């Protein structure tokens, strides 16, 4: 079976000093894979390396096809939608323009209305705000818009960078329910970066753990949530968190 995404010995650097020291990672097609790790472990860098936004060595394969060294726009056109940290919405543009931009690379332009209806189905709030500037939305709405924009491109793979960050717990809960629904409906593969491991492991089927630029563990989400040694070392006490929630 081809994987949605396959990283082999991937090294990435921001000009000086490597951030990723040769990691191997696979994202199976059609599931959610969580990429966990503490602050500064290189999670965001991994996503940026996949998107071609930083200098990357090694081999990155998207559904079997090598994308190492391609430009971000070329990789986007191949079906990778990145929901970056800080959400990356076009704040000066309206909600509907943001969604239109999501569909910029969509292969079939006539699917636009159908995909838009789907997005509004997941996030009815966006439908009420179509004419509003994205910069005036609340944090939760902006995150919905960022995910909605990703869906508009009819992607094969969605990269989500800490969608829970800065949001109230009740909003996060809603958001993750919808993400689960999207993963089930659309059959799209997701790579989810989260600091909140408890949350991520509930949504994901597979998980991998990063520590300062090295991949130190991977397996099914269940295995990883039971792996208390690792959990305590890098994520804080997951068991305690689990019982609290």
């Amino acid at each position: 079976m081809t994987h949605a995404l396959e990283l082999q010995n991937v090294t990435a650097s921001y000009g000086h000093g490597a951030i990723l020291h040769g990691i191997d990672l696979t994202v199976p097609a059609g599931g959610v894979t969580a990429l966990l790790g503490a602050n500064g472990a290189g999670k965001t860098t991994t996503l940026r390396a996949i998107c071609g936004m930083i200098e990357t060595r090694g081999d990155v394969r998207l559904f079997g096809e090598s994308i190492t060294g391609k430009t971000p726009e070329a990789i986007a056109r191949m079906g990778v939608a990145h929901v970056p940290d800080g959400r990356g919405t076009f704040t000066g543009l309206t909600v509907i323009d943001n969604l239109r931009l999501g569909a910029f690379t969509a292969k079939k332009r006539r699917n636009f209305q159908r995909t838009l209806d789907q997005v509004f189905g997941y996030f009815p709030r966006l439908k009420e705000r179509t004419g509003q500037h994205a910069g005036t939305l609340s944090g939760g709405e902006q995150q919905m818009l960022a995910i909605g924009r990703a869906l508009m491109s009819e992607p094969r793979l969605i990269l989500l960078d800490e969608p829970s960050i800065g949001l109230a717990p009740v909003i996060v809960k809603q958001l993750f329910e919808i993400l689960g629904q999207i993963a089930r409906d659309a059959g799209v593969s997701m790579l989810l970066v989260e600091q909140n491991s408890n949350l991520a492991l509930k949504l994901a089927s597979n998980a991998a753990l990063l520590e300062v630029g090295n991949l130190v563990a991977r397996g099914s989400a269940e295995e990883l949530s039971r792996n208390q040694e690792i959990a305590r070392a890098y994520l804080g006490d997951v068991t305690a968190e689990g019982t609290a929630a």
Partner: protein
Amino acid sequence: MTFFLEQLIIGLSSGGIYAIMAMALVMIYKSTGHVNLAQGEMAVFSTFIAWTLVQMGVPIWPAILLTVAVSFAGGIVIERIVVRPFADADDLVIVAVFVGLFLGVHSLAGAIWNYEVKPFPSAFSDGSISLMADLSIRAHTLGSLIATGAVLTAVWFFFRYTRLGLALRATADNRESSRLTGINVSFMLALGWGLAAGIGAVAGVLIAPVTFLDPGMGLAPLIFALAGALLGGITSPFGAALGGVMVGVLEAMISAYVPYGIEFREMIALLLILSVLLVKPAGLFGELVTRRV
């Protein structure tokens, strides 16, 4: 009353030209974060190209269309060769690049076409049109008013309703996100320069029949256009255009009604604009979008 109307039409007509220039300034401001000081000189250079074509016997309208196309390509070339290598440079370096571009284009125009003042034919008739019993306006004044209206509408339509226009707006708003949605940002930046140079050329051929053509002709319109852009809001293309129109009308009114107005119109106009900016720093229509953090 007819005198006032006449001044108003003259003001709207030159204001329209400032509006086009102001819009060109906004396009480049949005992609580089700086005012293209060479915008006026680029427009003059374009106008010289049109003049040369006319001298060669090309009729005025085809000459203008060809000039706009050549200027569009020239804008792209300037972006690629002069501006792009300094994309990540400090602000002062970029200002120096723009000053250099200003001097370079200015001197090149002088070297090719010399500094002698040349008449430039109107794209419309040289006659006058009588609007009322005692009010007749030069055909060129009315024609350029209509032409600027058409250009502004076309640009608005392009940005509002086309895919390419949307991509340009996205590039100006957030470069990284634009790349992540598959937009070729590098191409969009060059395209912005092409468009600015192209519509600047239109401003040049509209203003040259009034001011006559010489390499120094671009400075005054640039100052008025910049004033208009700041007045309307340099972050908003249509705010800037409206600001340009207002500056044109203001200029005409000061020249007509204020003693010594013609001598001091630039200064008076700028003083009025600066007082507006004291109250509204982003300009009258500047997008100070409220952002939640």
